[in-house]
């Protein structure tokens, strides 16, 4: 008897290959789109360039130009000397002239004459005119110089003692691989993952939606074999998509259709030996995403729902694949074991011909490991009747309108629902991101202060008042006991060095931009006592109150019904994400950890005040450390190793704090549970 998984796989393949959507993504897109897109772009570029080259540039020469210069401009084939009456800038804006030279009055035969070239940096035509005009002015300058030298009996080489020229030793193939290696990984990862996207949805959620899963599972075959068959199909489709994309890309480049790259001296071609290897790295990737998508899609009840659930995962998965585009990131073991990033970087190095086999092996092994994990997760989902049939029976129950989820638990002592709390924090984050930045730009540090109070604190209060929530319960307003405060102190004292260590370790993967360090140093370093207290106010007291009320107040209060690990992880991640900006990606992990630590303390004690104290302690410590000259030295050097003795001491303090909090809250937890159960 042929294996069940193979029976399932054959059937799924047959069905999938009859699906136009899948076929389109898998075959039509790579086969047609690459050549069309790449050649089209190139043709467009060439067309534009040709047009620009054929065009002559009308230019103006005003001021006190010598006849020699005017003759040179006149003699130029590409320039048309155009007289300007009225405003010169106006004439340029209206495209009457593309560039202009404003020539100053000469100060004697041996003096210097000032020439200003006017052009519009935002216009291709003006830039071309500028370049051509500049060449003519330079030619005039050289003529004058040679004449002066000759008048004094000096050779023309007198004024150019050094002839400087750049020459890259990169072989053209390397150069092509280097450039391509940055973009191709992203494209190939994108297409491989996309190849697995629709089949996974169709084979899991689609099957649920059409009711076929039920009949399939009444066949006398183990669920594991069905998952294996489906998974094999999705992974295979992903691989086929990867292979077709790779082949189509190779053909497009290999046929030499890209005249642009040739024109600028790049030899674009992927070594054939590398192609096999590139494909080999894409295989585990297809396997990984096949399993991830399948496991996620089976949780959704319909094709559409699954599409909504999977799209963010797909987009998220592309971020690591974008990393090779950025210069200056070296491929090391940490990146090799990072999902997707490892494949993308190994791919990049393969293209430029200096791949490390050890790292390649690490990528292969780790990707296979993640794929295995994802497969276990998918198999578990398929084995869970709650996932497969959950909610079906309950669908007979008249459901409440979705809006009721925002407003339920009415009456005294009510807390915001999970949906309401998350929606509020999302809204505040958007408000803070756009409004806060504007305030900071306009008013500097005062703007930051205003943003925290006006865009975080006030909305949180309004939310509680307008929503008629019980402030004490929804914001965890319980007075902390003395032990809690001691525990909080220990947690922060222990957490700080650990977070520092983690930040330091992280700097190997994500280097800290120096501009940011300088900016930060300026912001948090106090040179006088007045400045110090001001910094404590804006950087320690204010965030401790305003950010805590939003994250450990509203968000924690609304999500308290989840299980503890989720509450704390979610809180940390949201807190980290809130502090995220383009320059401060590096702060995400440390901030998220701090947020999670505080969230845990507030969750255990039900005391927001404890969270505020901890937040204050953390931020104030940083202000003190960066203001005190001795510690500032160490902190401002990102490569300085953190004093390692602090790590075990910190860990000890952290553990002590946790134990203290854990012991002192076991009794009060029951009380919290009673409160939570109260209507």
């Amino acid at each position, binding site marked *: *008897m*042929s294996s*069940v998984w193979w*029976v*399932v796989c054959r*059937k799924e393949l*047959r*069905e999938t290959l*009859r*699906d136009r959507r899948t076929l389109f993504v898998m075959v039509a897109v790579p086969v047609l789109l690459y050549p069309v897109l790449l050649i089209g772009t190139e043709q467009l570029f060439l067309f534009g360039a040709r047009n620009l080259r054929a065009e002559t540039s009308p230019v103006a020469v005003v001021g006190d130009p010598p006849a020699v210069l005017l003759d040179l401009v006149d003699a130029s084939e590409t320039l048309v000397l155009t007289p300007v009456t009225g405003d010169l800038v106006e004439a340029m804006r209206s495209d009457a002239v593309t560039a202009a030279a404003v020539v100053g009055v000469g100060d004697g035969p041996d003096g210097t004459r000032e020439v200003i070239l006017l052009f519009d940096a935002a216009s291709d035509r003006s830039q071309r005119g500028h370049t051509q005009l500049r060449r003519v002015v330079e030619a005039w300058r050289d003529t004058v110089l040679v004449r002066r030298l000759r008048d004094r009996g000096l050779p023309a080489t007198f004024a150019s003692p050094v002839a400087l020229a750049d020459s890259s030793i990169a072989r053209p193939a390397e150069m092509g691989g280097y450039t391509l290696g940055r973009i191709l990984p992203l494209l190939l990862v994108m297409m491989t993952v996309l190849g697995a996207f629709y089949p996974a949805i169709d084979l899991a959620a689609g099957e649920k939606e*059409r*009711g*076929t*899963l*039920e*009949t*399939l*599972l*009444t*066949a*006398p*075959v*183990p669920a594991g074999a069905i998952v294996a068959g489906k998974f094999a199909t999705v992974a295979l489709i992903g691989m086929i998509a990867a292979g077709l994309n790779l082949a189509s890309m190779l053909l497009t480049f290999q046929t030499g259709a890209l005249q642009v790259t040739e024109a600028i001296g790049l030899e674009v071609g992927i070594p054939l030996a590398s192609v096999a290897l590139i494909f080999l790295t894409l295989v585990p990737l297809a396997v990984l995403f096949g399993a991830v998508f399948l496991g996620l899609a089976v949780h959704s009840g319909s094709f559409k729902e699954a599409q909504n659930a999977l799209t963010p995962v797909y987009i998220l998965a592309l971020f690591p694949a974008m990393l090779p585009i950025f210069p200056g990131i070296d491929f090391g073991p940490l990146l090799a074991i990072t999902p997707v990033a490892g494949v993308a970087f190994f791919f990049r190095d393969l293209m430029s011909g200096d791949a490390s086999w050890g790292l390649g092996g690490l990528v292969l092994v780790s990707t296979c490991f993640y794929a295995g994990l994802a497969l276990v997760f998918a198999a578990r989902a398929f084995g869970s*009747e*709650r996932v*497969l*049939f*959950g909610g*079906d*029976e*309950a669908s*007979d*129950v*008249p459901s409440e309108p979705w809006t009721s989820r925002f407003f339920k638990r009415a009456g005294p002592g009510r807390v915001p629902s999970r949906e309401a709390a998350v929606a509020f924090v999302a809204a505040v984050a958007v408000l803070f991101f756009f409004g806060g930045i504007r305030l900071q730009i306009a008013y500097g540090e005062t703007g930051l202060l205003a943003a925290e109070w006006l865009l975080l604190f006030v909305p949180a209060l309004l939310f509680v008042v307008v929503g008629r929530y019980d402030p004490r319960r929804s914001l965890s307003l319980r007075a902390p006991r003395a032990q809690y405060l001691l525990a909080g102190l220990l947690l922060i004292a222990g957490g700080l060095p650990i977070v520092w260590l983690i930040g330091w370790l992280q700097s190997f993967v994500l280097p800290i931009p120096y501009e940011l360090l300088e900016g930060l140093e300026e912001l948090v370093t106090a040179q006088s006592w007045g400045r110090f207290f001001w910094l404590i106010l804006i950087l320690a007291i204010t965030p401790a109150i305003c950010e805590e009320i939003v994250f450990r107040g509203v968000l924690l209060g609304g999500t308290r019904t989840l299980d503890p690990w989720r509450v704390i992880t979610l809180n940390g991640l949201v807190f980290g994400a809130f502090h995220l900006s383009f320059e401060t990606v590096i702060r995400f992990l440390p901030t998220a950890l701090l947020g999670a630590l505080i969230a845990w303390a507030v969750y255990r004690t039900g005391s927001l005040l404890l969270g505020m104290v901890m937040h204050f302690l953390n931020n104030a410590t940083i202000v003190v450390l960066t203001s005190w000259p001795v510690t500032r030295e160490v902190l401002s050097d990102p490569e300085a190793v953190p004093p390692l003795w602090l790590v075990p001491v910190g860990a000890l303090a952290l553990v002590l704090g946790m134990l203290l909090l854990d012991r002192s809250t076991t009794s009060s937890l029951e009380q919290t549970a009673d409160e939570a159960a109260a209507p």
Partner: protein
Amino acid sequence: MPTRHFPPVFMINFSALTKRYGPLEAVRGLTLQVDPGEVYALLGPNGAGKTTALRCLATLLKPSSGSARVCGVDGSVDPLGARRLIAFLSSSMGLYQRLSAKELVTFFGRLHGLEGVTLSRRVDEMVELFAIGDFSGRLCGKLSTGQRQRVSLARALVHDPPVFILDEPTLGLDVLSSRAIHDFIIRERARGKTILLSTHQMEEVDLLADRVGILRRGELVAEGSPTELVQRLGAPNLVRAFLALMSDWALAPGEGSA
């Protein structure tokens, strides 16, 4: 494959079966037996637990307590063994849109371990029995509802099991197609098959069922032949008998969450 006979045991045996979804008890202590060659109909309003009970028997769901056995095989102990003994037909029919009728029946034959000549002979039998021949090469997505119902039956019966579980088999079918299903049920009963079906159609019950079980909020509240039930409840017909049993439920709609 010859029909199996297990004379000493019930063909279908629910024993104190309870199924919970979180706090919700969908089926509560269900106990009922079905004899060989009997057609048993489960009646009940939406959410009464009919589908849950059938799914437990078909091993799609695990009972929270109690058991559901087919020919003495406990589905939660030996699910694959139990599945070999049943044909399960759900109201959604569950056909793969992009497989042809014949491919679909063949696929399920393979899943049931048939292969080679045995498989193709059995598929041909099914094609003939359900008169699928004219459209056996057409994709299921392109078939009419009646045609799909026939393919669906062929799919469920390809392994010739002794017990049929039919969840609302005539849902959404026109009179003619429903009639075909009824004929099929009567014919299979004559062949000695045991049939458990759920339905909302009272005339279907009158026509087909040897015995009826009425479920309300997960509990079996009445059981017997249609005539017995009507007599016992002093109702003029089965519809009124059913309504009488549901009346206190209907008076308290706030409890409709069961």
